[in-house]
Structures are given as C-alpha cells and as structure tokens.
C-alpha cells in the first residue's frame, strides 16, 4: 500500500487554466504539506496543514489554494496557471519521530510534474 499517494503523476496544461492535484495519506498522520521542487531541484515549502490550522507561506501566490476535506487528504488547486508554475509538486505527511522529543519526519509522495505551456 502506498503511504502517500498523489494524482496525477503528470499534468500538462495551457497557461491560464485551473488545475488540481490530489493527495491522500494512509499513515494516520495529523500534518500534511505541499512542497514545490523547481528545475534546479530546490525543494521549497508551500503549505502545511494540521488538523486545526493551515499555515500559509507568504511567498506563495494566492492563485494556489490548499483544501483539506479531512486529515487524510490535502489537495492543491491552482488558478490561472503561469509558465513559472511548471515544477514538481510533492505532497508529504509527518509524524513526530519516537524518542526525538518533537521532531517531525516527513513521508513524501512520488510527486506530480506540472508542465504549463
């Protein structure tokens, strides 16, 4: 069973379109994330979402909106896609590592490669 699954794996679309990426985790984790990995392979946090709180990264344009119907799902919706949105988007979830006194260890999905033409 895949722990963190994202769909679709590949997404090719035109500028100006709206698209969504779905993410589901079956690990029972309370916290989920979206990361963006650009062409230079730099992995950057976009959002984190706990049961109770959505933490928004201020550098993320408001065209990006996460939606969490329940704690096992965190979807990413993108409006008015731009060329610069082309990247690989990773969903992740986390739990506190036993014996680490509070450190969160992330489990990532396989990524969704978005190409905007």
């Amino acid at each position, binding site marked *: 069973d895949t722990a963190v699954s994202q769909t679709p794996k590949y997404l090719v679309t035109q500028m100006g379109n709206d698209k969504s990426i779905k993410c589901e985790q079956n690990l029972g984790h309370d916290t989920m*994330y979206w990361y963006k990995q650009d062409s230079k392979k*730099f992995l950057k946090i976009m959002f984190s979402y706990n049961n109770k709180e959505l933490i928004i990264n201020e550098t993320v344009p408001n065209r990006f909106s996460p939606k969490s119907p329940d704690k096992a799902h965190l979807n990413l919706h993108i409006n008015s896609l731009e060329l610069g949105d082309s990247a690989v988007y990773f969903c*992740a979830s986390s739990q506190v590592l036993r014996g680490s006194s509070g*450190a*969160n*260890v*992330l489990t*990532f999905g396989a990524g969704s490669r978005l190409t905007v033409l």
Partner: protein
Amino acid sequence: SQKIEQNSEALNIQEGKTATLTCNYTNYSPAYLQWYRQDPGRGPVFLLLIRENEKEKRKERLKVTFDTTLKQSLFHITASQPADSATYLCAQGGNTPLVFGKGTRLSVIA
C-alpha cells in the same frame, strides 16, 4: 533568515570509498538536522535525524555528525556502492515545516 546550504552540487566517488557530504547552516543552531535521499522521479526518503545535543548518529553504513561550533553537519556513506548514487538533501527543523538545502548529487562509480 536561517539558511541551509549544501555547497557541493555534485560529488563523484569511487566504489568502496567513503562519501562525505556537507551541510552548513547560518544563524541559530537548529534543534534537529535531517538527511533525506531522493532518487530521480521519486520523492525524498528519510534517512537519519540528529539532534543539536548529539555529536554523531549511525545507521548501517551511514553516519551523521552535528558540529554546532562549525555550524555544520557531515553525512558519511562508508564502503559506497553504485546503488548509493542519488541526491542527498539536508533539512533543518523539528516541529515546524522542514527547510531543505538544495541537495548534493552523489555518483558512485564502479
């Protein structure tokens, strides 16, 4: 603001040798440093975590050190194998969203 820097983009090493990857941080000492492995087309996979008050952590052929004086963590793979070829990411943070370095692409040559 805090930065995590992995200065080597790529590292080539002969099979059987020890690979050493460097992660530096600026400003304050993070409570934890974590190391992940990423293969092409896949998400990062957690390898090791080391706390601020720990000098060294080991797991099989992997060893991580944390030097708060140098503001640096070193990641070692002993007896390296071609299967160890991947990108290795350093990340800082504990109970907040992890901040990743840009990664070092390791190639182990047979």
